[in-house]
């Protein structure tokens, strides 16, 4: 096994995904299956080109610094799960009070 339970839980925490206790073992098994499968890239000799392949343009086109109209057909209040006085609201968080 390449990935253990603790590692799956650690990654789930980084990704902010709740993992139910009942599904953990199965998830560990599936992730190992996937990770072991993709590990076959190790067969590829190491003399591959150093530059990553870019499918799009070789360099980014820049935008002029000109303000545009607000392109929203409906305001944030229309799609926000919790909104008041112009603000999105979230539960107050301990660490955030410090900031």
């Amino acid at each position: 096994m390449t990935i253990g339970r603790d590692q799956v839980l650690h990654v789930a925490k980084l990704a902010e995904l709740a993992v139910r206790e009942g599904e953990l073992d199965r998830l560990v098994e599936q992730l190992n299956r996937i990770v072991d499968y993709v590990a076959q890239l190790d067969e590829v000799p190491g003399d591959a080109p150093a530059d990553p392949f870019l499918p799009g343009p070789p360099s980014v086109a820049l935008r002029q610094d000109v303000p545009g109209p607000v392109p929203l057909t409906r305001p944030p209040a229309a799609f926000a799960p919790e909104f008041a006085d112009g603000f999105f609201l979230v539960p107050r968080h301990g660490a955030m009070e410090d900031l």
Partner: protein
Amino acid sequence: MSWETVVGLEVHVQLSTRTKMFCACRTTFGDPPNTNVCPTCLGLPGALPVPNAQAVRLATRAALALGSSVRGRSVFARKNYFYPDLPKGYQISQFDQPLATGGRVALESPERGRIEVGITRLHLEEDAGKLVHDRFPAKTAVDLNRAGTPLAEIVSEPDMRSPGEARAYLVALRQILVYAGVSDCSMEQGSLRVDANISVRRPGDARLGTKTEVKNLNSFANVERALEAERLRQIALLEGGERVAQVTLLFNAGSGQVKPLRSKEESHDYRYFPDPDLPPLVLSPEWIADQRAELPELPDARRARLEIAFGIPAYDARVLTSEVALADYFESVAAAGVEPKAAANWVMGDVMSTYNEGGTFPVSAERLGSLIALVRDGVLSHQAAKRVYTELASSLGEEPKVVAERLGLVQVSDEGALAGWVDEVLAAHPAEVERFRGGEAKLMGFFVGQVMKRSKGKADPKAVQPVLQEKLRSG
């Protein structure tokens, strides 16, 4: 035993653009919450970033002004973490291929004289939104107007050895960036933000001590205060046989203390990778050369030039170049043909105090030039000129000469008028006249003073003396 302090600073400056880093929303400060937002800076499904050319230009100029080498190819990367002020769940920044590396800032250290602080790197990134904690009970409010504002992050080498040097570095850095027209660097509006890394070690120790990071530094003075507090905290720990833990601390300006921040994440694992929405940023050598050519004169160069071109003292040159506007103003006054040292004195005195209060120059450089010329030509005394200056500052468009005349401050050097006052004075003080004639030459000062008094200050003292000499001799 003594301790050596080692400080490195990470400075974020907001680039002076009209629109955000990756979308066409305005960067205006102080608008109602969530009004300068669009699909891109709200992180809506399907929205994409397109970089702002002006942000790239300004960051490039900042790098060139700091002597950094701008890379022909840099890469935007995603820095992944969750926070309610970060709409996409990642910040677009630059990681292993930043816009610029190297460079230096020269400054006057309070302890070591002139030093240079190395610049590690400068990169482009987008700002997060703003969180408001005190407005709704048990809720944190999120305003994304600031989200996506273009920032340049400037990371210094750990080259500073005291809190005072850290402050001096910030003053010098700010001056360069303002000169280069990159940012207004206003700490009040958050367009310049500082995080400090600090450690202590025994002098001569080649290894760095464990560093801590201090945040929430909202003024240059507080950077110095916070670093002083943290320096002492670390020394106390080490002298007590304890170890310094690698933590992030917040400075409380009220108490002057630093305290550890409860951690944002258990571990910082930002999983940087190149942003697939953004091809590499490629800048041609020609374009970079153009930016260098368009760079305005920077503080050090201007200081040197003012010293040489105008023959003013080094101290004056440093004060005058502390702000671009002040230096510009000085040069315009000096260009009016008056004595540069007199111009410098005026600008560093009355002009600077009004500028520091209101941020403006109520008297045009041209008028100040004419005013100084009136003093030079003996038309006004220095004291009278100061009164005229005050009057000019609150009047609109009057010429100094006109104001001086209106206030009756023009010095009289007409011999006829002077002779009248002189005659009156000599007549009133026969005893002193006798003593003068008997050889008490120092009484000349007394007579001049009396003439000035009788003329209510209008007599030109330089012109009074020959008339007095004449009358005393002939009488």
